[in-house]
């Protein structure tokens, strides 16, 4: 295997293995956190080798390191690379009928930057004083060399910089690819919703990831070169930098990052509910437009993360309005999905179940987020597990389920073999239900006042009674971890002896399924297809009547009705063609 092959499908597969590996690592770290909250200070089974001093029990520094690394790995090295690196790289060129990405070698560079970052993250576990432990946000002064003096923090900061550079590169690559490399006839109105999601998210990547890179680079200079961008605290000593500036920079990236992760997920949900309801996506233009509005607003809402940082109340009010405003386009999308499902011929395949699961967990996450967008309710809830529950539902559970929706859907195209449907459904359903258990439990604990990041919450008398709740939540988490075995078994089994499938097992009309075999050849399409209609040409009476099936390829022209009528319309412009009625 050529590790520097620049074919987008090869790069996608590399990201897939890397992302799944980090997902596993991040998940195990999450289970350790849950163990600590269920059994504070008790030795974690099987960890005695890593922490001999405490016989495997979490110590406060180990605990801070674990929750820091969990967040950081999940966001920068698992979910983002899986959504963009794996699914994005694979699907985007195929979906628009391109032969590859606009800059194939740039995507190789991007992957190896990501891999370098991943190596530094793994390496940080082995250095003296442990890995990063300043929280995934790396707020100064916690992230300065005074409070986290370990080399691990520095390594991880460099790793984040690498991941940021990699995201920027594929973001740029995707934007140019969608703008410049669409197949003939692939107008903007015929893109799949997934591509719309990836495109908008890539725009956000290009705009806001450099902000993170800048903040991280300045932080690194503070750590290594003795600069004082963020360290001293202007208020404290009347000089030097201001730690709050970092928070502004971080969240100017951090909030759009939520949409960077969820926009592709929304796109996939939009496509899958149409594909598996066997109906055109309801309000396709509105859905795509709503995604655009979310994208436009996403950079203008970041300061709701700073309501409790001493920001001016006037600013707080402005950001509150903008934040709450962003829920409107999301509701438009939701309504469209529901309208698509309405009276559809719903097929509960594994990608569909995962898409529905995404809708449910994201819906709940969105509703619980309203209380954090409004200043008055954010102030008491901000420091609590409520925030953790909310953001895990939106960013964790929803992105995770979307990743698996995409993976189950495109896996046959990637490898030519279909994952076992039964195992896949069991995996998706159990994961979705257990996500609700885990993050619902966190919401409840947060509402009861349990603060975030506490090593041992029960040291506070008023939180002592939450131990049983946390133990139940942890039990759900352990079961959730165990449920992932279903996927691992399925993956291993399928890759070795799974069912070989044809070009279009899901019977949908988009280009990757109708115009190229599974897996596609090096150049994707030969010849490049000419696109005739939108992606959701499903269950049109005319198609049923003339082709005997309920779907039609994006580049498929109607067969000649008879040899004697050669002047038949090609159907350019979609399904409104007059067909063969001469």
């Amino acid at each position, binding site marked *: 295997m050529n590790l*520097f092959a620049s074919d987008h499908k090869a790069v996608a597969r590399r990201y897939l293995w890397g992302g799944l590996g980090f997902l596993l690592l991040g998940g195990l770290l999450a289970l350790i956190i849950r163990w600590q909250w269920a059994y504070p*200070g008790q030795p974690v089974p099987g960890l005695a080798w890593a922490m001999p*001093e*405490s*016989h495997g*029990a979490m*110590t*406060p*520094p180990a605990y801070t390191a674990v929750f820091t690394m969990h967040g950081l790995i999940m966001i920068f090295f698992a979910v983002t690379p899986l959504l963009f690196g794996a699914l994005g790289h694979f699907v985007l060129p195929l979906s628009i009928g391109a032969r590859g990405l606009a800059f194939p*070698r740039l995507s*190789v*560079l991007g992957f*190896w930057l990501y891999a*370098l970052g991943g190596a*530094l993250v793994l390496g940080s576990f082995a250095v*003296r*004083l442990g890995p990063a432990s300043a929280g995934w946000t790396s707020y100064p*002064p916690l992230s300065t*060399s*005074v*409070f986290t*003096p*370990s*080399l691990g923090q*520095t*390594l991880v*900061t*460099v790793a984040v910089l*690498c991941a940021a550079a990699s995201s920027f590169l594929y973001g740029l690559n995707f934007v140019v690819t969608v703008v410049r490399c669409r197949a003939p006839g692939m107008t903007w109105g015929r893109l799949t919703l997934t591509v719309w999601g990836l495109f908008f998210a890539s725009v956000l990547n290009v705009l806001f990831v450099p902000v993170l890179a800048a903040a991280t680079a300045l932080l*690194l200079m503070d*750590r*290594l070169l003795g600069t004082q961008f963020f360290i001293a605290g202007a208020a*404290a000593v009347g000089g030097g930098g201001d730690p709050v500036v970092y928070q502004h920079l971080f969240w100017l990236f951090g909030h759009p990052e939520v949409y960077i992760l969820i926009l592709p997920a929304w796109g996939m949900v939009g496509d899958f509910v149409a594909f598996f309801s066997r109906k055109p996506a309801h309000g396709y233009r509105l859905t795509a437009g709503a995604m655009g509005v979310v994208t436009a607003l996403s950079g203008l809402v970041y300061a709701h993360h700073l309501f409790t940082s001493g920001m001016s109340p006037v600013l707080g009010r402005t950001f509150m309005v903008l934040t709450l405003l962003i829920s409107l386009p999301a509701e438009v999308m939701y309504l469209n999905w529901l309208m698509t499902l309405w009276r559809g011929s719903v097929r509960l395949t594994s990608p569909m179940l995962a898409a529905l699961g995404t809708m449910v967990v994201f819906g709940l996450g969105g509703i619980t987020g309203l209380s954090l967008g409004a200043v008055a309710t954010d102030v008491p809830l901000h420091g609590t597990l409520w925030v953790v529950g909310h953001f895990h539902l939106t960013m964790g559970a929803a992105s995770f389920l979307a990743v698996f929706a995409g993976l189950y859907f495109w896996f046959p195209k990637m490898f030519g073999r279909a994952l076992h449907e039964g195992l896949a459904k069991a995996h998706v359903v159990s994961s979705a239900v257990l996500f609700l258990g885990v993050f619902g439990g966190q919401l409840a604990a947060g509402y009861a006042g349990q603060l975030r990041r506490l090593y*041992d919450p029960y040291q506070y008398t008023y939180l002592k009674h939450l131990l049983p709740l946390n133990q139940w939540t942890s039990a759900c988490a352990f079961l959730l971890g165990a449920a992932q075995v279903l996927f691992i078994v399925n993956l291993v089994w399928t890759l070795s002896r799974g069912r070989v499938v044809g070009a279009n097992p899901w019977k949908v009309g988009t280009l990757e399924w109708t115009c190229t075999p599974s897996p596609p050849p090096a150049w994707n399409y030969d010849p490049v297809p000419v696109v005739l209609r939108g992606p959701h040409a499903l269950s049109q009476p005319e198609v049923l009547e003339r082709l005997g099936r309920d779907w039609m390829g994006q580049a498929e022209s109607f067969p000649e009705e008879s040899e004697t009528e050669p002047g038949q319309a090609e159907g350019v412009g979609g399904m409104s063609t007059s067909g063969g009625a001469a």
Partner: protein
Amino acid sequence: MSAHRFATAALLLSVAACSSKPAPTFEPLKLADGRVIPAQTLSRGHAVYTHYCASCHGEQGDGQGPAGRGMRPVPRSFRQGLFKFGGVAAGELPTDDALKRTLRRGLHGTPMFAWDVPDSDQDAVIQYLKTFSPRWKDEPPGQPLSPTPDPWKGREPEAVERGRVVYHVAGAGNAGCASCHVAYLPRAELAALMEKALGRKVDLSKVDPYTSQPRDSEHAVAVDAKGEPTQTAKVLPPDFLFHPLRTVWPEGDTVEGAPYTAERQREDLYRVIAAGVGGAAMPTWKGAIPEENLWALAYYVQSLVRLQDTDEARALKERLRTSSAVQ
């Protein structure tokens, strides 16, 4: 991008990352009591110190950590080798046991928490603390002043009665604590008590026994670049009806995983009264007054501590104020 160019870039980034603070190396530490602390223990201690202690006590052990700024009392500087609760005669170097007790229990009412750190880490960090002050190489730690058997067992009211005398009266085997701490008897009762104990009349009209006076402390609140103290502060002796005592917890709390009983509380009071407070004006009382009086003091102070936050305490304070105003 070619593989070797990529490798070069990776190498450069990694080198940049590695130039952050190098791990210090340690020589084995030879203590005055003959023990030699292996370098490995010191290295572990350094790591533990960095994680748990350095943000307040400072990387140099000078009490000037960034999180310690603005704390009152200020975090201890380890460079003078002065410890408040050393379990030995005030001014001598503390025992390991006393240091470990402070570490495990924390200091009540201060940001010094009860550090639930693995045992081996506690031992390591205690040895590491000794690298900050040269005293440890020259002086052995003092003799531990452990509590003697309680002579008042089962006779609590009697002990409190005796303790009251020991506390308020100076001389003749009494401690006269009220000369620094405040008195808890109205003027008339105080005069009567003194007369009874000393056999002569004492003129209290010129003194104010109800306002505690700040006393000199050797503890540094500011240090120079070398960690030498440039400024010390006076400290106020605690008023037992109000102030949380650093080494004593409310009865019924859980301390070191066990319920904090009246006996344990008394023992802790005894320990501080007997040993004194290192670096502060509170002297070592063990040997200065009879052992039974030491214990009686513990009983009496405990009776005051029990009053904290009660109406009785407020009433007593009110009585003391009015008796003070009469003069």
